[in-house]
């Protein structure tokens, strides 16, 4: 296998702690192969740093196969880097030119306080999930898989929003630091399915109001959709706004019929 080797200059955000003053640090990576993932490139950088007796760059990562939502990084001004529909871990060095200067920054939002270097605390998302991201289910034996008929289009649409891995790219990419795409994806996932109907309107109400405690507001730029590694459409935001409107204006005694 032939290897295309590239020399890369990195401008990486370094910050000792939440209160410390941060700054960009420049590092050079020589002869990185095209096949390396972005995080493998950072592993190599950290190896070099540790060998030189310096402190490694702290960044979040876990599954490295695009399904856990742990990796983050603002790469050249884009959340998860320049490739659409891809988390940072699935981004490869073939996406960059030889001698490129790559700028790496952490997600920035007041709800995502910086822990160290490129790592931020995304537990504000957990607060939103806690407030309504669940359904009531009967306990006992496992129900038959096809007990509740669900139209294929509905199941597919619910799956499209259930794809959300909660990485926070939507908040990071949003010029307003809003979390409407994340919250709406979770709302749409459950509100579209029959199993989610019991809490449909209380869910959207509590989740929207919890979101409000941490994040900015949606002004319909659409940047979140472009940054989302799962390419979740802003259509789900409209669905959330619609269900919130219904939750607020409808006669709650009639809600099951809406």
């Amino acid at each position, binding site marked *: 296998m032939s290897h295309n080797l590239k020399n890369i200059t990195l401008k990486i955000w370094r910050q000792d*702690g939440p209160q410390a003053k941060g700054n960009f640090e420049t590092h050079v990576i020589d002869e990185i192969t095209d096949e390396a993932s972005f995080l493998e490139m950072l592993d190599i950088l950290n190896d070099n740093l540790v060998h030189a007796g310096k402190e490694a760059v702290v960044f979040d990562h876990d599954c490295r196969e695009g399904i856990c939502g742990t990796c983050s990084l603002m790469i050249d001004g884009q959340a998860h880097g320049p490739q659409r529909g891809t988390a940072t871990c699935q981004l490869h060095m073939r996406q960059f030119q030889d001698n490129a200067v790559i700028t790496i920054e952490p997600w920035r939002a007041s*709800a995502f306080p910086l822990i160290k270097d490129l790592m931020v605390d995304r537990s504000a998302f957990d607060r939103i999930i806690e407030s309504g991201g669940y359904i009531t289910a009967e306990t006992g034996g496992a129900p038959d898989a096809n007990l509740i008929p669900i139209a294929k289009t509905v199941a597919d649409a619910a799956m499209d929003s259930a794809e959300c891995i909660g990485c926070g790219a939507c908040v990071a990419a949003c010029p307003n630091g809003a979390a409407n795409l994340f919250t709406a994806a979770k709302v749409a996932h459950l509100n579209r399915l029959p199993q989610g109907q019991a809490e449909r309107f209380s869910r959207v109400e509590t989740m929207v109001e919890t979101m409000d405690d941490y994040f900015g507001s949606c002004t319909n730029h659409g940047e979140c959709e472009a940054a989302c590694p799962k390419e979740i459409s802003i259509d789900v935001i409209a669905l959330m706004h619609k269900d919130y409107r219904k939750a607020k204006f409808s006669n709650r005694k009639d809600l099951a019929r809406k």
Partner: protein
Amino acid sequence: MAQVVTSQRGPVTGTATRSKKRRPFLIDLYSTAVGKKYVMGATGIGMMGFVLFHMIGNLKMYFGAADLDHYAHWLQTLLYPIAPKGYVLWILRGGLITMLLLHLHAAYSLTMLNRKARPVKYQSARDYQIANFASRTMRLSGLVILAFLIWHLLDLTFGVVNSETGKMVVHEGDTESVKAVYDSIVYSFQRTPVALFYVLANVLLGLHLFHGAWSIFQSFGWNNPRFNKWRRAFATGFAAVVVIGNVSFPIAVMAGIVA
């Protein structure tokens, strides 16, 4: 054994300002960002209706001075004699002022919320993918339109900066005099800087509508894949109609078509 880790960072701060307590329904709804966007959209629809009919009404100037002045007189005496002259117009104006104030307040408080949501800006350049020029400049275009609105009222409604506004004229075949709206418009647009400011403000109004008229659908949750393409077409068409109509007036005056 579970290990207790004392974190040196504070609690996640976010944008929350006060504890939750239930307030009257509309205030409660308005206190959320999503609720403010409903207000933004609803007042936007109201003001869109106004700019469209304002433009259509002004097209009367192409039929001549008498037509436009009679139209203005009709507005002044709307529902007369059941309502005294001018009352209905002021009720409508009251509605417009309320909508404008709500629109401004929602915009202001959402902007403050958004600043609080990202107190530390990105230190490197952002590379926006979808956000268009119109959506990125809503605040700027809105402020220029507001400044224009103030000038426009001083010019053609209250006549503070226009000596022709408020003068009366008796048209051929009339028994009573009506306000000479046509003459004051012609006088206003014969001043080139005024005409240029008018054109600039209306182009920015078009930009504001291009994003705003589309954004309303998202804010209210009117989303259906079957019709989603029409939302953009509607916003573009609406903005284009309003801008072309409005911008034609100063051009017509400067070109001598309306004189």
